[in-house]
């Protein structure tokens, strides 16, 4: 396939050494982390670089030889916590650092698979974590590895010993706060979002000193709340009651539970925000800013530079948390700084990342019943009003509405990849819808409640999951790979013209990045819902992925469950390479 536009590597990946990173006594610095995408000898950030393109410049492993890829070792996380391994490993100085479900962090020898140490967060047994027991990965800086725990703490460990260096509470687990995302390290700060139960919480982004865990700035994401910088008030988010009624902004939701990406060239971090509360949109007229949005936040001050709301006045639980991945491309002859996001709501958005202006929005799933496209002039969806779930106005079962995508989204948390060679995004998507109705017989905390009943169901005979290669400049889907069960794992693209992703059926698969032809697969023994990585070590190219079925999907019964009913739980790190010649 002809490259449709040129990609620029933009300072980030300046043509520095492509050799394995030297083992520095002090460990990776913030500068090393910014340069991660250009140092394939290590993986020292979630997303393999601040842009989180999940693209490796390595090509020793390629479409010609990937069929020979074999496992080097499998390392068990042990114990009984065999569930929901959604992490992306890190590799540094001969060690693989990977988080496990239930707030665990492991260090394995990258050559032998032997465990060096293991850290188990002591969690209060009364936690009812909102967002599964998963964890998506750690961050590394200096002598520390840092990760977030289910009881809403941020923990920094000595990367050599696994001993705790600092441990900071980021929210009250009793109030429903939790944390599962990989932290982002920028300019010696560790930047995280928050997550938690639906009601009463307000999304926020926090930046902390990486050495001490002390708060530097905090930015609440719902309008009306005031941010802080070095302990001082630092301006209100948005304008009070501009898009909310009464005091609902105080408990407006918008959890930033998936973390963020970073663009050094604009000194900006990008965080997505969750759905607004309460769940029924008829009770909160207005756009409900900045829920279901992408926010561009100044790294140094925590001030919002721009926002783009993907689902104004959300009524379907279309969280806007999905990752915003910066990339550079030439559009109509003009080189541009862009970013892309494949939203829960089924649309793939391309924005000018310097100002948030919408450049394009295209459907990346089979069906979007809630809107007929996105208006490029206003940046707003063309809603289909009759497909908005109804108001909870009576003690009778309401009219059922069919909505697609389902609330689990056209794409959920699992990160997409961008190939600087093909210029394509590789989006792990799902084609499914839901029937949704108001449910009068519901109870919450011992009291009658008006809930919503829903049933998630497939919308195609042959698949739910679909890995789609999307041209961000045209919105054209260049190829797609269909998978029977929902896809729930991250994607990796490489200069070897390969795309890797895992399936709930247990396979790690490799595809031709240009054609989508499936070239290789390996059965890991449990569903793959983690994100694969690749790196170079001792002159050879390695690939690693976590195996261990879990996350949100196994909850759902009915037709969707039929696609994974035989899948067993697990908890294993798999590492692959080509055999020595």
């Amino acid at each position, binding site marked *: 396939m002809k490259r449709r536009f040129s990609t620029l590597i933009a300072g980030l990946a300046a043509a520095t050494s492509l050799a394995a990173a030297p083992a520095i006594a002090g460990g990776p610095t913030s500068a090393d982390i910014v340069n991660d995408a250009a140092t394939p000898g290590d993986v020292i950030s979630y997303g393999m670089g601040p842009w989180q393109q999940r693209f490796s410049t390595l090509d020793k492993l390629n479409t010609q030889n990937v069929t020979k890829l074999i496992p080097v070792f499998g390392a068990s996380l042990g114990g009984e916590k065999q*569930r929901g391994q959604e992490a992306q490993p890190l590799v540094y100085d001969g060690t693989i650092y990977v988080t496990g479900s239930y707030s665990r962090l492991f260090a394995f020898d990258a050559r032998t698979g032997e465990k060096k140490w293991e850290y188990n967060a002591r969690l209060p*047994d*009364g*936690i*009812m*974590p*909102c*967002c*599964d*027991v998963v964890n998506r990965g750690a961050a590394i800086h200096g002598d520390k590895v840092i990760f977030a725990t*289910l009881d809403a703490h941020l923990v920094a460990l000595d990367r050599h010993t696994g001993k705790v260096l600092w441990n900071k509470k980021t929210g009250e687990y*009793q109030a429903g706060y939790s944390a599962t995302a990989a932290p982002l390290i920028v300019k010696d700060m560790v930047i995280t979002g928050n997550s938690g*139960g*639906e*009601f*009463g919480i307000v999304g926020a982004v926090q930046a902390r000193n990486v050495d001490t865990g002390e708060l530097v700035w905090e930015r609440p994401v719902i309008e009306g709340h005031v941010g802080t910088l070095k302990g001082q008030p630092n301006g209100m988010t948005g304008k009070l009651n501009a898009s909310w*009624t*009464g*005091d609902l902004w105080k408990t407006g939701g918008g959890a930033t*539970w998936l973390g963020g990406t970073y663009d050094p060239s604009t000194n900006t971090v990008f965080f997505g925000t969750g759905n607004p*509360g*309460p*769940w029924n949109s*008829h009770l*909160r007229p207005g756009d409900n800013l900045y829920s279901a949005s992408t926010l561009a936040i100044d790294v140094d001050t925590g001030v919002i530079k721009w926002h783009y709301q993907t689902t104004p006045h959300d009524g*379907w*639980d279309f*969280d806007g948390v999905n990752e915003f991945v910066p990339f550079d491309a030439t559009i109509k002859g003009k080189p541009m700084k862009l970013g892309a996001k494949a939203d829960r709501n089924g649309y793939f958005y391309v924005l000018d990342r310097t100002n948030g202006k919408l450049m394009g929005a295209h459907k990346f799933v089979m069906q979007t019943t809630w809107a007929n496209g996105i208006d490029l002039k206003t940046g707003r969806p063309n809603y289909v009003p009759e497909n908005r779930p109804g*108001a*909870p*106005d*009576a*003690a009778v079962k309401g009219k059922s509405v069919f909505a697609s995508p389902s*609330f689990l989204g056209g794409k959920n*948390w699992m990160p997409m990849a961008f190939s600087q060679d093909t210029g394509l995004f590789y989006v792990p998507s799902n084609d499914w819808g839901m029937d949704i109705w108001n*449910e*009068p*017989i*519901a*109870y*919450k*905390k*011992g*009291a*009658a*409640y*008006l*809930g*919503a*009943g*829903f049933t998630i169901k497939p919308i195609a005979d042959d698949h739910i999951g679909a890995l789609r290669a999307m041209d961000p400049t045209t919105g054209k889907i260049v190829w797609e790979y269909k998978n029977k069960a929902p896809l729930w794992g991250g994607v990796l693209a490489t200069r070897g013209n390969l795309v890797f992703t895992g399936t709930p059926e247990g396979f790690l698969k490799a595809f031709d990045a240009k054609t989508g032809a499936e070239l290789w697969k390996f059965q890991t023994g449990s569903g793959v819902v983690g994100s694969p990585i690749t790196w170079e070590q001792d002159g050879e190219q390695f690939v690693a992925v976590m195996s261990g079925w*879990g*996350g*949100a999907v*196994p*909850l759902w*019964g009915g037709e969707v*469950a039929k696609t994974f*009913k035989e899948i067993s*739980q697990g908890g294993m790190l798999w590492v692959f390479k080509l055999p020595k010649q």
Partner: protein
Amino acid sequence: MSRPVLGRREFLASAILFAALPSTANAAPLEKVKDLGVLRVGLYADNRPWSWAEGGKAMGIDADIARTLAEALGVRADIQLFLADEDISDDLRNVVWRGGLLGFQPCDVMLHVPFDRTLMQQENNVVFLSPYYRETFGAACSREVGNCEAAPAAFKGRKVAAELASIPDFYLLGYAGGTLAKDLIHLPTGYGAAAALTDGTADFAVATTAQIEAVVKDHPDAGIKVRKGPLPMMMSPGWDIGIAVKENARNLGFALDEAIEKMIANGRLAAIFAQHGVAWKPALAAQA
């Protein structure tokens, strides 16, 4: 499947739906409780006046009932105040028949469980017993208000209070096309909403009758006026509450049921309610 909240991105719920089956018996749960000398009772945390913690002790109507039930079995009560999950189905799984994913052990019995035929049909892993009270929603006003029997629309422009994301919240937000939405103050609990009438925070509150009555008792000098007439277009007619035990613990459930019957007959139950300012009302299901 019915869920009260759409919001969650990744539900935990049930590994069990697809993996572990309910553990095999435990043939004699009642004997086990007596042997161990402890009845482990699950109550909602922060659910005043029913159950809440104060100075490390479980307080409230349900806490007092739990202690009385333990006493009836000749054992000590081990009260576990747990965090409410998204709906009753989650709570029953976490507290009664499976336990929490992070190590919370199941309780022998949970109190304050809605007693509802539809719910019973959905929940095969627990037994519902002993409906012991009828919950309803009501309203009250601050001393500043002249006529608390007026239609809620009369409170436009004054502060009205409700528990966040409760039926009273939805009622007031949606009432008469949202006419009160701008005046609504959201509090974390219904008790808190009623208590907002005591200090000038709000002039009108919708909460459960028990929450309102308890606040009136706790603030005897506040001049709170309890609305006597029904709330027009209120979505819920009320509901019964009872107890739940694990499906294989029927003999324990029957023993507790007998103890509650006795408490009703001898006035002990009504006395416990009265200590908290709440007028005991028999469950509808118990009056048939």
